[in-house]
């Protein structure tokens, strides 16, 4: 499998030819009847898992099955934030591994993912908030990751347009300067292209409707292309994890909900960082195209509709406009929802399942994008060795039975 190397020279060469002869970034193969590993779900985590299986573990007879198209699900619907400012050691270790992989991802994939480490700033809106912020920022430092406490004036220096005397006045905050945003489409396309070059078959428009199993093992998956067989299977289907798990014969501690986000019309640069407020539950940043990206909490009830409630949009906008009054005159261009898989402790569920050769990577809820490279790396290790990668051992499905929850939702109090 040859692939065109992307560089300034290839760009110039193609520009001179009027950009008429770019090759597709990945093939459209006819599925084989059997594989070593079938990855169900062609989102970022699924593609990254396939890529690391092929690259690190030499398992190249792999298929990724995507029900729609690459980048059409949550991987193309998130708000592109990357950070590792978590509270517990297990989370910090994992997400810091992911951020470090992101820092080298453009080179790794030969695809510019446009990482912009502009900093992620978390706001405190009361003296009590400020106390919790200090505790949180200190915990991050104790775990060996950068974080910096900001005064009111410090917040203003990062974001000159912020309204410090908002309805819930800003008392300070903290910043992780290595946090920022990455172009999400580039991450999906980059992993798809790199995996394809290593021999992975990416099969789009191929929903999985069920499993074929014998003696406690999955032997094949039923698809539009017939039954596809493999030795091992990995489930990376976010909001639909419960539906497919049930068809494979087990249950999950997951509730699927709609998470909304929106962008305004593009404007000149006005936001410097990613600003996040756990108290009024909104976060915002400016994309490289100039759009203001606004997100917040998930809708409150279970949903598979990829469409959220107007009341929630109104909440996000009210909070964003109060923090940045200059936003009030902008028009919204698009708003959308993705179906997210929320676990009881808002930490992911990764590793083995009650079915012997079926592995799962789910429970990312509202924050899976930042974890894509590490999710792929650690799941590939887990599948290749049939043993959890040390970084994800704490996130196993059996933690609910053992009572070993990693309660980031309560500890960090964040919109992931």
């Amino acid at each position, binding site marked *: 499998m040859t692939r065109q190397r992307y560089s300034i020279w290839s760009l110039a060469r193609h520009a001179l030819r009027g950009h008429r002869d770019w090759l597709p970034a990945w093939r459209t193969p006819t599925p084989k009847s059997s594989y070593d590993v079938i990855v169900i779900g062609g989102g970022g985590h699924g593609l990254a898992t396939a890529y690391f299986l092929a690259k690190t573990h030499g398992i190249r007879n792999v298929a990724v099955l995507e029900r729609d198209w690459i980048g059409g699900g949550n991987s193309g619907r998130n708000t592109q934030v990357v950070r590792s400012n978590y509270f517990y050691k297990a989370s910090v270790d994992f997400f810091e591994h992911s951020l470090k992989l992101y820092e080298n991802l453009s080179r790794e994939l030969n695809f510019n993912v446009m990482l912009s480490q502009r900093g992620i700033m978390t706001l405190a809106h009361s003296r009590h908030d400020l106390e919790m912020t200090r505790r949180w920022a200190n915990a991050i430092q104790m775990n060996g990751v950068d974080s910096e406490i900001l005064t009111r004036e410090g917040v203003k220096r990062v974001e000159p347009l912020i309204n410090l005397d908002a309805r819930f006045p800003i008392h300070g905050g903290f910043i992780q300067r290595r946090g920022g945003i990455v172009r999400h489409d580039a991450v999906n396309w980059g992993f798809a292209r790199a995996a394809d070059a290593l021999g992975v078959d990416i099969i789009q428009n191929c*929903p999985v*409707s069920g499993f074929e199993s014998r003696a406690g093992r999955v032997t094949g998956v039923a698809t539009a292309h017939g039954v596809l067989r493999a030795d091992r299977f990995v489930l990376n289907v976010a909001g*639909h994890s*419960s*539906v497919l798990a*049930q068809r494979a014969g087990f*249950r*999950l*501690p*997951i*509730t*699927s909900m709609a998470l909304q986000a929106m962008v305004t019309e593009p404007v000149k640069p006005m936001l410097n960082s990613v600003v996040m407020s756990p108290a009024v539950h909104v976060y915002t940043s400016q994309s490289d195209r100039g759009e203001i990206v606004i997100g917040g909490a998930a809708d*409150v*009830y*279970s*949903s*598979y*509709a990829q*469409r959220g*409630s*107007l*009341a929630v949009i109104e909440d996000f906008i009210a909070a964003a406009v109060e923090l940045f009054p200059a936003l009030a005159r902008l028009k919204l261009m698009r708003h959308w929802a993705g179906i997210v898989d929320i676990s*009881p402790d808002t930490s992911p569920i990764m590793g083995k399942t009650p079915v012997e050769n079926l592995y799962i990577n789910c429970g990312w809820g509202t924050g899976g994008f930042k974890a894509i490279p590490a999710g792929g790396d650690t799941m590939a290790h887990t599948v290749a060795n049939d043993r959890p990668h040390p970084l994800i051992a704490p996130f196993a499905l059996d933690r*609910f*039975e*053992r*009572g070993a929850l990693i309660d980031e939702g309560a500890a960090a109090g964040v919109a992931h």
Partner: protein
Amino acid sequence: MRAPPPASRIRPADMLRIRCPWCGLRDETEFAYGGEAHIERPPDDSSDAAWAEYLYFRRNVKGIVFERWQHARGCRQWFNVARDNVTHVIQAVYRNDEPKPPVGDGEERL
């Protein structure tokens, strides 16, 4: 200034309207969500697995779901709703002491 969109463009599905058994039809913002209904507490001497099942594991079906809601900013009563979580159409509202209505339980989509 542009005129506001015509009322017809705001579809009922853009937001839930729930018929509280005591107060009638109200907007979703008056209600609090209580998760899946009909979950039974296991006996005290149950295994860890049974307690985990009770506390954390959910059916989370795609299709008709039976769930608890509270009219938190109204009469504050709890009640049950049968709702299609793909179309957001509410199939039935019933009191806690009433049995599950026969509206497509177990019906599932992919």
